[in-house]
Structure formats: structure tokens, C-alpha cells
């Protein structure tokens, strides 16, 4: 990556393996799945499978799903494979929103409700999804989790992997990769990890490397921003300081 503009008003959509990745959100109409128009299909698929796997523990029941695939052309077998994959995770494809005629025809042939918009029409803006994202998985090298809200990961974040969140980041496991909390400028965002051995830490516009040498203490730690400086303290210490701050304010 590296090409992210941190102060851009529009945060790269949802979470994904690359810029503008696969993105889930939900509202009263069920779950919406947005597929990026430009990414290679293999990457979209890999990303989708990973997200489905790691979010599975948090899906409940069978939910109707709307697929937003922009101008991407999906042929009949691809769309079918997608529906089968979603069904394995108890998500039922029922509506397809597309700007591509070929995709619309394929979807109609398979009996899904289709809404086609012309490529000239602006695709509807993504709803800002700031609800926390819960994941149960290992975030491995090369994976990138991006979300506008807070991210809760039950598992390890391995070196070479990254989590970028608009809110807080909690890693219930070993944090060894790169994390960026408050990526849209929230300086009150915190990072929490059961074992903190990061490659790099970022909060809002500040960057810190872990101190060199020495093994990290075997205790949960919290990273936060105080007067523009990134601080790392044990969870206990963090809570004590918070309590003090509240008392004295």
C-alpha cells in the first residue's frame, strides 16, 4: 500500500486486501456487499473468502444480501459461484445492483432481483459504516483490514499484516504487524493488545516505532496519544491514569 492519503475526506471503502477492497455493511434492508470495480477478480474472491471466514462467528441467521458490483462484469458461472459461497455463510443473495448490462442479464437469468443503473449515473455513495468490526481470525502477512469504525480482532496480527481503523483497535492476541488507529484524525483513539510487539504504531497523524531491543512485558498494553506523543503503558497503568484524569477534571 503506501499510497493512502490520510487526510482525504473519503476513507478507502471498508476493509479490504488492497485500496478499495471488498466491503460489507448492513442496514434495515439486510446486508450489502460492495465489490470494487477495478481489482482483479482473484483478489476480490480471496478477500471475500477471508472476510466471510473471519466474520462468520458474528453473522446471525440467514440474511438477505444485496450485491453492489458497479461496472464489474460477472458472468453466469461466476455469479453462481458467488451465490454458493455466500450461502455457505448463511447469506442469501437476492438483489444485484449493477452498472453492467452483462451482469444484469446474468443475474436476471439466475432469478435475482436486478437494479441496473447506467454507467453515467453516479453510483450511490457508500453509507459510512462506523459500527465496530468484529473479526475472529489471524491477520497474516499481506492482509490489510480497513474499517471506518473500531476493529476488534480475536486472533494474532502477524508481521506484514495491517489494521487501519477510524476508531480504536483491539487485538485479542499478539500484535506484531502495523496498526493505525484514528486514521481519519481521531486523536483520542487507542490501541490495545494482549501482547504488543508491533512493526509500527500510528494514531491519527503520529507514527511510532517500538523501542529496539528488550523483550516486551508479558502483559496487556495500551497505546494512546498524549499531547501529540504516542505513549505505551500497561493496561493497569492506563486504567489508573484514566481514573486520575477523571477525578482531577
Amino acid at each position: 500500500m503506501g499510497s493512502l492519503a490520510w487526510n482525504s475526506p473519503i476513507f478507502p471503502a471498508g476493509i479490504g486486501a488492497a485500496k478499495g477492497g471488498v466491503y460489507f455493511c448492513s442496514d434495515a434492508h439486510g446486508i450489502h456487499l460492495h465489490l470494487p470495480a477495478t481489482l482483479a477478480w482473484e483478489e476480490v474472491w480471496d478477500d471475500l473468502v477471508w472476510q466471510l471466514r473471519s466474520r462468520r462467528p458474528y453473522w446471525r441467521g440467514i440474511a438477505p444480501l444485496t450485491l453492489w458490483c458497479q461496472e464489474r462484469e460477472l458472468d453466469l458461472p461466476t455469479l453462481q459461484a458467488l451465490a454458493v459461497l455466500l450461502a455457505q455463510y448463511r447469506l442469501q443473495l437476492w438483489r444485484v445492483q449493477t452498472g453492467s448490462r452483462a451482469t444484469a442479464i446474468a443475474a436476471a437469468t439466475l432469478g435475482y432481483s436486478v437494479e441496473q443503473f447506467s454507467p453515467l449515473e453516479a453510483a450511490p455513495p457508500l453509507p459510512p459504516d462506523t459500527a465496530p468490526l468484529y473479526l475472529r481470525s489471524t491477520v497474516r502477512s499481506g492482509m490489510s483490514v480497513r474499517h471506518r469504525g473500531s476493529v476488534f480482532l480475536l486472533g494474532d496480527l502477524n508481521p506484514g499484516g495491517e489494521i487501519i481503523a477510524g476508531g480504536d483497535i483491539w487485538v485479542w492476541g499478539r500484535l506484531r504487524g502495523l496498526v493505525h488507529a484514528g486514521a481519519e484524525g481521531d486523536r483520542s483513539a487507542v490501541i490495545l493488545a494482549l501482547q504488543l510487539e508491533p512493526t509500527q504504531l500510528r494514531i491519527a497523524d503520529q507514527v511510532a516505532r517500538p523501542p529496539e531491543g528488550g523483550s516486551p512485558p508479558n502483559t496487556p498494553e495500551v497505546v494512546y496519544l498524549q499531547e501529540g506523543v504516542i505513549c505505551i503503558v500497561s493496561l493497569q497503568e492506563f486504567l489508573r491514569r484514566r481514573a486520575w484524569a477523571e477525578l482531577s477534571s
Partner: protein
Amino acid sequence: MGRVIVITSGKGGVGKTTLTANLGTALAHLNRSVVVVDADFGLRNLDLLLGLENRVVYTALEVIAGECRLEQALVKDKRTPNLVLLPAAQTRNKTAINPEQMRQLMEKLASSHDYVLIDCPAGIEQGFRNAIAGATEALLVTTPEVAAVRDADRVVGLLEAAGISSIQLIVNRLRPDMVTAGQMMAVEDVVEVLAIPLVGMIPEDREVIVSTNKGEPMVLAAHPSLAAQAIQRIARRLEGEMVEFPKLASLSESFWEKAKRFLTQKVF
């Protein structure tokens, strides 16, 4: 139906091809019918390691193009009756074949063999996609080095996304003396990062170079070296046998063991 296992690593030079050749041979000696598939189109090596280079007539490409039957392309190994090789084409590149063709080919092979071992090319591009297309299991090879483990971690993610859920780890080229001295990652460290089950650890062994140059799998030696023994144990574990992992120290030969093996070896 046989098991289709891809041997992969991400990083190059960690020992995929050597392992494929030797593991295939070891499994064949456990009376299993084995086909080893070279999926490294354009950079084929597996035939060399097995010493079968000059017996290759057809390759996987001709099979796919319908220019020969599958049986015609399979090269038999005289030393190991149960082992055959499906060679890759050396003159073409990785785009000469697509994942669907590979899947069909592997299915056909699995219907007539107990094991199909696929030697995957390094990298995560098209060649990798082809190699894993027909596989249902994976053996992930890594050396105890930071870069190799990092790449292996990436590959685990890709394998999982491709729906291959049985992924087992082999740590190769381990140097027990360096691990003890704290100069090399221990196997436990590797397992902890990758979070997949361990199926084998193979010590660094000079014998490997000798045997690859000769084109004779080292598990065939009358007195197999420590690395060869480790591969034989992996073969038995794949067969479902519970084989204990030896202590780290026993993976390096003492002077007397070395001398003994040297004296009993055939001089060539």
C-alpha cells in the same frame, strides 16, 4: 480417490522440489502409488532431482493439448516402481496452462494414484494459482528465517482463501547448533507465527547437495542421512502414523555417527 497435496512455500530456495522428490520416493516405498507433478512451467527441476531428465518425452502441456494420453506422459522411475513423474514443459511459461485445466488433470491423476504431490513454483502469481488449483491439501515448507516465514504466512492466507483448509508445516534446513545458541529461529517460534500444525522438521544436510547433483533421492540411500530420515518420518505421518518428533539435539549427528555412516557408505 487419492490425496492431492501441493508442496509450496512462497519464497524460493527453501527446498520444495527436493522435498517433493524425496517425499514422493519415501511414500512410494511405503507401498503407495505416487505421482509427483512438476508445476513449475518454464523452470522445471523435478525431473533432474529424480534423475529422470533424459526420459521425459511428453509433458503436462501435451496432455492438456490432447497430443498424447496422460499415461504416455508419466515417466516411470526404475528404482522406485510405485513412483511416476508428470513433467512440466521447460520451453513454455506459466501462462501456458490455466487453473481449470490443472484441476481436471489432477482429478484424473488422483483417480488412479494414492498420492498426487504437486511441486509448486516460488511466488504467488499465476504459477502458484495453477499449482494449487487441483489440490485439497497443502504442505507448507519454510526455513527458520524471518523472510521465509513472512512469505509462508502470506501463502497460508492465500491457501485458506482458495479453500484449502488442511495446511501442514514443514520446517526445513534447521541447524540445531544455531538454534541452541539462539542464532536461529526455533521451530516453536515458526509454529507460533504461522499457527498451523507441524508435520516435519528437517535438519540442514550436506547430503542434499550430493544427492541432487547425482539425481538420486537421498531417501534411497542404504544408510539414509538425518535429513532423509526426517523425510521418511513425514511420509509415515502423512500415512496417519503417530511418529514422535525427535529431540532437537538428535537432529545433528555426532562425530562418531558421521564417521560410522561414512565408513558404511558405498564409495563411488
